[in-house]
């Protein structure tokens, strides 16, 4: 099942299938370590807070609205 990252619940794991957005966003998200194929775990997903995911050995906070364009396959 493929869903936007914002719909991955706290504690769920997923693999990034696709990221879309403008160039700046793509290069920023890639340079922090999140790219297609990367496995992540949702650490916290609560309203009006940035998402908090665990990926590539660290915790990463991500803006909510931009994260809608990250599609993940729920594992």
């Amino acid at each position, binding site marked *: 099942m493929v869903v936007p990252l914002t719909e991955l619940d706290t504690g769920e794991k997923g693999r990034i299938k696709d990221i879309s957005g403008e160039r700046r966003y793509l290069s*920023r998200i890639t*340079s*922090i*370590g999140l*790219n297609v194929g990367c496995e992540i775990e949702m650490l916290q997903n609560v309203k009006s807070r940035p998402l908090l995911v*665990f990926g590539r050995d660290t915790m990463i906070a991500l*803006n909510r609205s931009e994260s809608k364009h990250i599609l993940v396959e729920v594992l």
Partner: protein
Amino acid sequence: MADEIKVALLGQPNSGKSTLFNTLTGAHQHVGNWPGKTVEKKDGYFVHGSRKYLVSDLPGSYGLSANSDEEVITRDAIAGEDADLVCVLADASQLERNLFMLADIAGIRTPLLLVLTMIDVAEDQGKKIDVELLAKRLNIPVTAIVAPDKKTYGDFFEKLDQALNHPTLLDTTALFRLFSEGESKALYAEALELVPKTGIDRFSKEWLAIKLLEQDEVVSAKIAVKAGIEPVRKFVSAAKDGALYAGDCKFAWIETVLDGVAVKTKEPSKLLTRFDRAAIHRFWGKPIAIGIIILGLIMSMIAAAPFMGVAALIPSSLGSLIGRLTDFGVSQDLISFINSTVVLALSWTISMLGFVFGINLVFGLIEEIGYMARVSYVFDHTMSKLGLQGKSVMPMLISVGCTIGGAAGTRVVDSWGQRILTIALVWAVPCGATFAVIPTLATAFFGWGGILVMILLFLIMFLHIFITAKIFGRTLSPVAERTGLIMELPPYHKPRWGAMFMMTLNRVWEIFKKAFVIVFIVSVLFYFMSYSSSGDVEGSFLYRVGRTIEPVTKIFGLGWQTFLAFVASMVSKEAVLGVLSAIFAGSGNIFSSTVGIAKADANLASLVTSEISKPEALAFMVAVTFNVPCLMALSSTYQESHSLSWTLKIALYYIATALILSMITFHAARLFF
């Protein structure tokens, strides 16, 4: 010195780059700005063996794309003709993610040294790294250190020499092969066709092609000059997923490089500690952050106490020492001049340094531990409305205690532009001294209505912050460059008290030298402006100016008396009561009232209420609250911004807005009183 070697430090945030820079250069640092840019430039030097190393601490970013001025400056500095060596730093405990910087620099033909930091943390987590194998695969020297611990630097210095004696370039064959064999190989081949065959300066053709693939605006513009605007534009618009492809290739390369190099010997322990669960909690996160900041403020005050003690003793001890100069025939006037300028400037500067020291030490440690990133996370939603990152909430809270500390606290804010914006907003927060002065006046004029005055001031504060954020944000945090939060919350680290203590002390000494001069000059100016041979207010230059321009100040609702007090409040907020007292009760001259030597008259309340109308009083309170906070806050702002022009811009803006607010208040209040 035989050789001067230019070394640049490059690394992602939290890679230990600044720690390495501070440990290497110690007190030999210079912090300024890149010419014409809102980006901080940190340089320093150290001597090792027969060489003098000029080190520059490049701005921290996650990569080398043209996303910000920081990144463009960084890559131009790396590829500059005079760069002898670039040290790429990578956190050994998160090597895969941190090596992205190395993959991004690949193809820039500058010799490299890879420095793995936090090797102790990696070992704790059961990650073993084969440094030799890594060096062989990359074809550059690799060394592992614990950045805050200079005892671990032995191998670093050896490899540094090796890298300089036998400069080598990173082996990029495997990386570029991935690009030319992957699924978007056609696009990459097309990019290679567009770029100059020999590259541009130190940027190789492959590096340029990859950046073109990533739709990098700066590189596109450069290539367009050579290959023509139309073909480049056509290519770039076709390369929609180029950035993703480049990211995939880079991480694929990192994975092959690290295969067999980094070995996990045990699984990581729990991802979130119990403290972290609370620190990021949706209800508890904010109260915990505010609690920790307040606790930090209290600790800072304790750390500042020794400085404060010394500062408080200076006027009496040094003053009486200078007083003895009369025995040598020095005139009383000269002695009083020295006491009122040099001695006072010394005392004030030292007490300011107390704040700066305490705040830098305590919040520097909280930052080093990794907690400030959590604050950034929980306050991101709130502060982003002002164009700021979540961390900016800390200086603003500190400002309720003291604006000097608030300005000093902005050091934890990562980008220079946002730091200056935060300072500009921090000034609008009424400080402890304002809370000491305004309620006294408010109660004198309005009795219980004084509470309403305080509420009014808070409402104005929110409006002020909102408007100031809009005005200053336009250049300091342009909306077009504002991006949603993408930030690492690093694992907690053990704080290094000793290293942080020494570093802060070093820094404070640097600040002292500069700040003392500023405070001294302003003291002298103010001394002469308020000097009166008779000792009465009427004899001073300020009085004559105040009287002359009274028709103008009246427009803002201020008579010459309140206007004088308004001017004095720029030097110190506590001055207001003393100056009013000097004017209305003749309890001393303006200077000594401003600098706190003369105390406010006991009957001040009844005196001022009979002399000042209610609308004027209200306008005055607003003007004073939102005036330049104090001379030391001004000085502290200059220290943090290292930009005289921005410091003056902020100061003039505050004087102007205080007067405008005063005018509005005065005319509005006249409708009621």
